[in-house]
């Protein structure tokens, strides 16, 4: 049975880019463990002869022509939601130490 330690939770949080407080790490190690133990009932299910389901309505390879379509949105409107910008570009914090 899965049991998530504090270290496991920290590793997951790191992979998912989530900063957690100490209390959250404790809380999640208990809660995530009980959720994983609940879903582990699936291990006993016989699935021989079955294929995994990825899509339920039978659509395959839905494509469209690779052309630019003008929906009439003004770039300034689309940029309004940026937390930080400069010269109509997304501004982010430094990437290298």
């Amino acid at each position, binding site marked *: 049975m899965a049991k998530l330690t504090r270290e496991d939770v920290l590793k997951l949080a790191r992979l998912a880019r*989530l900063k957690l407080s100490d209390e959250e790490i404790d809380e999640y190690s208990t809660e995530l463990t009980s959720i994983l133990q609940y879903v582990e009932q699936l291990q006993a299910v016989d699935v021989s002869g079955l294929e995994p389901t990825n*899509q339920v309505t039978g659509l395959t390879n839905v494509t469209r022509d690779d052309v630019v379509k003008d929906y009439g949105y003004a770039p300034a409107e689309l940029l309004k*939601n940026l937390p930080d910008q400069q010269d109509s570009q997304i501004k982010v914090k430094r990437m290298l130490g």
Partner: protein
Amino acid sequence: MGGQWLPIADIAAAVQAGKLKAVDLVEQSLKTIADKQEYQAIIITLDDAARARAKDIDSRIAKGERVGRLSGVPFIAKDNFLVFGADTTAASNILKGFVAPYQATAIEKLEAEGAICVAKANLDAFAHGASTENSDFFTTKNPYDKTRVPGGSSGGSAAAVALDLAPFALGTDTGGSIRQPSSFSGTVGYKPTYGLVSRSGVVAMGSSLDVIGPIAQTVEDAALVLDVMAGKDELDGTTIDRQTDYTDLSGDLKGKKIGIIKEHMADGLQPEVRTVVEAAVDKLKAAGAEIKEISVPSVDMALAVYYIICPAEVSSNLGRYDGQRFGFSDHDAQSLDDSYMSSRGIGFGKEAKRRIMIGTYVLSSGYYDAYYKKAQLVRSKIIKELHEAFEQVDFLLGPVSPTTAFKIGENADPLQMYLQDVYSVAANMAGNPAISLPAGQSNGLPVGIQIMAPQRADKELLAVGKQVEAVLV
């Protein structure tokens, strides 16, 4: 409760004929929202935009123009629908202040027929939950008892319809989020076949499961709204062709083969809910429906499958909230990586983080086969069994949720909360349409029944829904 609004088709006809004014309908809706504010069903009202649209519709009608099948009908959208120029938060702190630069196809289609969006409704943040208690802002109160939840995640939408804030509302349903709040709040909730309604412009949760649909006072109203929204959309590659006219609800209950899912009537079902469901079944029998018990053994596994597939898809879909392009950003962060970590750490609520981490775990190397792939395989098994059941009966019936509306704070344990969806997730697993209908009350609280149909049988399901509604009311 309810009944302040005429049937939607009648409202639209009266507006088109000049007997009712769209501006008055919008004022009526806004006033009711203000009067019922204590229930906290609404996150934001769109007063100016709604009034302007109403004025425009009235003047077009005065000039003799035909506006559409929803002329002047006010409606409320769950706050995970993008509505042009309006705040769209999905009830999350990370999207607080986000203003939609474009809008959902569903909203476009409703507006094209003359409907007017007056407000955005509360939900569990990112639609993760069954009570609205996971909203990062506030909890909506049940219209029948203010100490209880309205259900969720579309709890604000269901409460809005029950409180007469508008004739209909839009919800989204990934595991039961239209049907369970409808059951708790005494409304009609419709989850269409997967892909029948475009999800373009709706905040994504579990993309192989998510559908959008109407919450309304009657099946007829829900069918009209669905009919307007249904069909293929080039902006959503998962949409399917519409099959037919969904407003043709003719037919008779006599001779309809309805299966009662044995596993959904077993232990775990609250006795009060069982009593209402059994009484409803008796009435259907008396009306000539052919009722038989049917076993779908693997539906008992549906919730476990759901809590692997859904978090996996959530962890992927919520990757876009990175604090850089839109939404909350921690400006104190020193590096880009810090900014990702703290913007997401602060911006996401508890349940979003929980699901992101579960999803990350079940998709990570070493665990993928044991969890995610196994869940996909059991999903296939459930679909196969449902398919076999639909070879014997036309519809499957059972409770929507194991309980009536619970007290605010009562289900503090996340796993306990997840069990709310135990009967509703199977329809999402298989992409089948399902409806929640008011079936009666227990201790003054509404109880809903669920009817499920095969994929693409939306018209048949709505028709039988109307017949069942007539027998139960």
